[in-house]
């Protein structure tokens, strides 16, 4: 298994694609199921393309963030590993920090700029 610190260095901060793929794996899903779930969750803001999902899942599998198995319909199912979950938790913590800082400072910008 790759060292978690090395993985953090490689993956954090995460791309939107990697973040949403891992976020969708709260339960095991197949490739197209991931795209559908992400579109639903983000209200169609993010539509992951097949090539993008395949490329990212292949890389994540190689790095041990996810594992695959087949379901009874013989579809390939992706499941998050401990390392994958650990990375996602770290990224969520980072985003929370960003969010709280953004909220704290947001008001200061309401008077600068804006429409003339």
């Amino acid at each position, binding site marked *: *298994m*790759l060292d978690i610190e090395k993985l953090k260095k490689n993956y954090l901060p995460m*791309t*939107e*694609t990697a973040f949403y793929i891992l976020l969708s794996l709260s339960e*095991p899903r*197949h*490739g*197209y199921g991931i*795209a559908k779930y992400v579109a639903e969750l983000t209200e169609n803001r*993010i*539509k*992951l*393309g*097949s*090539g*993008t*999902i*395949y*490329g*990212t899942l292949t890389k994540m*599998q*190689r*790095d*041990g963030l996810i*594992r*695959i*198995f*087949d*379901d*009874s319909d*013989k*579809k*390939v*199912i992706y*499941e998050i*590993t401990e390392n994958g979950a650990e990375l996602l938790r770290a990224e969520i913590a980072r985003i929370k920090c960003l969010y709280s800082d953004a909220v704290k400072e947001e008001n200061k910008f309401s008077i600068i700029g804006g429409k003339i």
Partner: protein
Amino acid sequence: MKKKFFPLWFINVINTEEKLMKLSGNGLHLSDMSYGAGIFTFENGKNKKERYRICLAKNCGGEPPKGLAASGWKKVCGGKNYYVVKNPDPDVENVPSYEKWKSRVRISLYIAILFLCFGLGMCIGYLSALSEKIADGKDINIYSFIFPAVLLIIGAIFAAAFFISNRKLAKTDTDLGLKGKVLKTVPKENFIYSPEEEKQMLKDGRMIKKAPLGWFYAPDKAEKMVEKMGLEGWKFYRFNELGTILYFVKSEPCRIKFVVDYQNESSDEYFASAKEDGWKLEFTSVTRLQGFIIWTKEYGENEDEPEFYSDNETRRKHARRMALTFGLTFLLCISMIIFSIAMIFIDEGYTGIVPIVPVLLVTGYTVLVAEFGFFASKTIGFYIRTKRKYDNKN
């Protein structure tokens, strides 16, 4: 406890798993294995058949997916890049995927074929040299024949073994993907019209064909061209089997997304998930290694344009993959031609008259260099355009 040695167990993993199942029926149940050494450790138990699966999974740390437990699979043992699971039901239908084995056996088969060809070439070379020596009445050194002969035999044995294994693995394919059949570059179902109908349509002007030179190698331009033709009322119909000619039929103006993808290796899962997402397969390489895969998707006027690559990182990677592959092939060609030219001049037998064989060789290489130089320049151009378009954006 008993240890058994299966030296080449990995060539045909299905056979190995069947052997393990048979042994469990005789009271020997697998408890551990040494992947590289091929040593399998068994414990004595009841005479009860169990189903085994040796699964490849990079960086899995020996841990099988939790989802497998639902269909009764339990971990036996594992290592950094593999895990072994067993199921008490020998006829269990839900068996973990052979996907990784398929790709490994396919690559091994191609390598074995390469060795076979190399051995064959050397043997032919040796035999022709031998006949010359016999004609000149020189001594024959039979020992120098051993190496090419051994190479030929080993290549043939391994190629045959991997071929059988490959066929066996292909049969485990699912209904998704490509069903493990020997592939055609253009799927059969894409030929909507009969050859006679197509001929008539081409004559009537209801169908046209285009053959832009080397269009594969500048995907962004090819994609734009086909999409523009669609808007002008020429809908993309199909490819010829070499992928060099594109056929269009007269239609109402339509919106079609045309994607030229390039993969170093494409698995069943790649095809299955793209098809499920509504992409239509138009062209693929037969070897499933290093090749172009073409997809199309029609969409309505009020719909968003579908994207095969939805983020800039994977777009850049796709372009880089192509530029690197064709750039390196070009470099290889260049070094081959330099080597060949050098050999002509270094050759002791060179007497001022240009020998025919090296000249032919150099001519051949020059054609190769021109061809691959063209591919390389096109793909590098594509990479530069993609990089400019998407750089500094996430």
